[in-house]
């Protein structure tokens, strides 16, 4: 019956029967913990292997098993990888959300569903494809306890057939997914194949969507930002990591552990690093600072609540000048907020971390490639400036699958900053907090330095140039001013903004982090509609003087960010009060990655005012 209905819908839908090739989103709705994640990853990689630009985003709940989750795969011959407002192809694996998922499907869309799904399929404007999930898994080859899990392979096979994903690509993807473990591959592949064949035999394609091999992913890799960040840190010479589990930062520590354990061991199996799970974030940052002080390349990874807990220690690290790297994989706040949704809302909490006057160096990776790069670079910057350095990634960048050019081996040698040896102390003496070089950065010694004059006392209370306790107003002020100068002078030495100037454009766009793809797509569309824009992507705070120039060169500059208050805009305004009014907010927080359409809408409506 539903087949007939579909056919009718098909015909009624009419008009838009032209093919849509390599340019649509596909959403799989399932229940958390049901095992669909593997299937989704296989689909993403199969498309990637077919040379089609692709991205995969997991919208999952704060739950281990049972609550709804949606995985969205976008393929785009133009190479766009941002989220789209809706997906015209949906797979309804979750009975609980099926009604709503179906209702949300756009007219002309396509709906795959297990044939035993009991919901009203009377909508006439979509194409339905029932799938025999039960039937294909209730076979002796599939062990009983794995049937729900393997059931997810059915949609892989059916989708492949209907959307024309190549079986060889699927096989390669499956092999990749299981790291070549044949046993696991063989447990899944037969079901995919059976479904593929079942669909070939039983489904007549009646929709417009399909994919087709391209050559646009050669030389790219597919990876998430947390793995990239973890790997980058391993190449950056991280030696001590202390962390406390928190979504969405956990996988950075996990991936780093996995990479380090093969890459950073001595022949006897001993580790050239320590990755310690602390009892909480207060202890984690305490360990990181203790380690940084004693000469480790030390780091932690956390998210908003952890950043809040670390505030006191972060002020200590700033003021006592101890190198440390803090990754904040941002999620929705305030408070626990939505732990599994994306946000860029911790700029204030990081940039101004701690009571008193502080300003902290923040790196803002905008791609998984930059996650890798800032992974090693942040450790250099921390030791160079002897200060806590934040890397603000986010859930979308950190936990989702992104295409990227291969990671580039670090282009600069390891930078340990200004550390004096016993010999140097002997020759030139040692004044811990004296600004010898005029750059605000003083020299330090490491504990254990074998010289009677190498030691100094580190404290969060007032100290003079020789690290002696002081309450003298002028000394305190002088020290604070040097600190400020140090951070101020970092502006031009941190990762520079990426600027795309469009001649004659009156509108500028400033963004950072994971919104980059949506901004790129939005600009293309705006250009097509006759609206010229320039674009500057900030990669570090404090930001370079070129940002001011950029603003000065445009009448209106839209600052795009996933938070409610426009935190980056406010920070930039504080750098350029005379241009403050030119900076306009394009900000919002609802836990979803931005779409190009939303950005366009915001800019257009503000332009019309």
């Amino acid at each position, binding site marked *: 019956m539903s087949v007939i209905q579909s056919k009718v819908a098909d015909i009624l839908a009419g008009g838009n029967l032209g093919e849509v090739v390599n340019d649509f989103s596909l959403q799989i709705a399932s229940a958390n913990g049901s095992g669909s994640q593997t299937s989704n990853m296989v689909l993403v990689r199969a498309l990637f292997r077919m040379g089609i630009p692709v991205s995969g985003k997991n919208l999952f709940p704060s739950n281990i098993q049972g609550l709804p989750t949606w995985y969205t795969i976008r393929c785009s011959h133009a190479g766009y990888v941002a989220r789209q407002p809706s997906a015209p192809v949906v797979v309804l694996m979750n009975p609980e959300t099926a009604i709503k998922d179906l209702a949300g499907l756009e007219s002309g869309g396509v709906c795959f569903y297990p044939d035993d799904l009991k919901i009203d399929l009377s909508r006439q404007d979509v194409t339905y494809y029932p799938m025999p999930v039960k039937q294909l898994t209730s076979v002796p080859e599939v062990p009983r306890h794995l049937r729900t899990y393997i059931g997810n392979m059915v949609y892989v096979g059916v989708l492949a057939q209907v959307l024309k994903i190549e079986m060889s690509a699927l096989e390669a993807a499956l092999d990749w997914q299981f790291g070549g473990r044949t046993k696991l591959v063989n447990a899944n592949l037969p079901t995919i194949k059976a479904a593929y064949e079942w669909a070939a035999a039983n489904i007549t394609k009646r929709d417009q969507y399909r994919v087709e091999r391209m050559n646009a992913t050669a030389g790219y890799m597919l990876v998430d930002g947390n793995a990239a960040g973890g790997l980058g840190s391993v190449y950056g010479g991280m030696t*001590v990591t202390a962390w406390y589990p928190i979504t969405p930062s956990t996988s950075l520590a996990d991936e780093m552990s996995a990479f380090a354990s093969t890459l950073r061991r001595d022949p006897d199996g001993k580790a050239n690093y320590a990755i*310690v799970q602390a009892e909480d974030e207060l*202890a984690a940052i*305490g*360990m990181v600072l203790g380690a940084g*002080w004693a000469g*480790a390349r030390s780091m932690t990874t956390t998210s908003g609540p952890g950043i809040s807990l670390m505030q006191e220690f972060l002020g200590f690290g700033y003021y006592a000048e101890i190198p440390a790297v803090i990754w904040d994989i941002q999620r929705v706040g305030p408070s626990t907020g939505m732990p599994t949704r994306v946000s860029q809302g911790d700029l204030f909490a990081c940039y101004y971390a701690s009571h008193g006057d502080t300003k902290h160096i923040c790196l803002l990776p905008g791609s998984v490639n930059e996650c890798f790069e800032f992974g090693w670079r942040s450790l250099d910057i921390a030791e160079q400036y002897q200060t806590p350095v934040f890397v603000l990634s986010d859930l979308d960048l950190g936990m989702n699958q992104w295409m990227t050019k*291969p*990671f580039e081996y670090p282009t600069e040698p390891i930078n340990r900053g200004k550390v004096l040896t016993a010999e140097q102390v002997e020759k030139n003496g040692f004044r811990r907090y004296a600004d010898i070089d005029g750059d605000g950065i003083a020299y330090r010694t490491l*504990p254990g330095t074998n010289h009677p004059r190498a030691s100094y006392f580190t404290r969060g209370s007032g100290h003079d140039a020789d690290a002696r306790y002081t309450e003298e107003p002028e000394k305190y002020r002088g020290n604070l001013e040097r600190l400020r100068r140090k951070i101020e002078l970092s502006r031009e030495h941190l990762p520079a903004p990426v600027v795309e100037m469009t001649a004659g454009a009156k509108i500028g766009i400033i963004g950072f982090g994971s919104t980059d793809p949506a901004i790129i797509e939005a600009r293309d569309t705006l250009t097509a509609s006759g609206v010229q824009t320039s674009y500057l992507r900030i990669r570090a705070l404090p930001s370079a003087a070129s940002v001011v120039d950029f603003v000065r060169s445009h009448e209106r500059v839209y600052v795009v960010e996933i938070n409610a208050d426009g935190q980056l805009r406010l920070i930039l305004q504080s750098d350029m009060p005379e241009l403050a009014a030119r900076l306009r907010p394009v900000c919002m927080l609802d836990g979803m990655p931005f779409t190009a359409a939303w950005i366009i809408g915001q800019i257009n409506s503000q332009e019309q005012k």
Partner: protein
Amino acid sequence: MATATVAPSKLNLIGLDKSDYKGNPSTLCAGCGHDSISAQIIQVAFELGLKPENVIKLSGIGCSSKSPAYFLNRSHGLNAVHGRMPSVASGAMLANRNLTAIGVSGDGDTGSIGLGQFKHIIRRNVPMVYVIENNGVYGLTKGQFSATSDEGQKLKYYGDNEYPAVDLCMEAIVSGCGFVARSFAGDPKQVRPLLKAAFSFNGTAVLDIISPCVTFNNNPDSNKSYEWVRDHDSPLHDISFVPVREEITVDYEPGETKAVTMHDGAKIVLKKLAGEHDPTDRMAAIMLLERSRTDNVLTTGLIYYNPDRDTVQDSEGMVATALALLPDEKLRPVRSTLEKIVASLC
């Protein structure tokens, strides 16, 4: 009494003078127990011939936590934030496992705000000497109750304490600490060998030293006052420390003494003073503390000793070298490894 310490001489084994171990002049109140402890740390470090450049000294915030500025000026020092010295010390010892760490904390710093970190550093067995200068009061903030204030303790401005005292030795034992001692700042003869033994211990060594606050909590009815402790102190043993280089030369009555060998081969010799206590018996140690609590006496000496636990560095499978000093080649894997990983992600 058995004295097995180094004979007084101008220079110690590594050729340093005692003055090489001193710190800045103290800014604590005259008579503060904490200053006696600093003096013993200086003395012990000198006698042991510790290389000051290889020592790190850490603390939290409080009068007690100021102490590291008053000893071992040739050592790197770090005065952390309130209650969080344990995590900082852990990090430092992960960065450079070849350092010798001594931490000084207060009862407020360790027992109130810092209780969690205290328990967790012990759980990890981070090698360090952890001294608590326990005066049952917040000195630096002018005399509030701390978590070790005794139930019923009276303070000038704050009236009576209604809550039971935290026994930091008990806390240490149940958290798995392998070296737990209690002493009294007014008893340098006991503090010194305990400190020496603690420096020989490869793991977290906790010394809870009652250290009277003469300004805010030295009334004779306070169990952290000089007078009360003198009256209620019940030392377990007469303790001597025998460095690894020396033999036990002193004669003891057989059956009256017990020698405990430390990680580095040094020994402490315990001569029974009162009752029977085997410091290697965890159950006995716990019972001893329970009894001292109910009997309202202050049992001092080596309460528990167990050298069998791995340190955090061994648990984590770390190399023997200091991570802080690894050469760049050890820090950055070679280019070809990255190429392989990149290929695997394509």
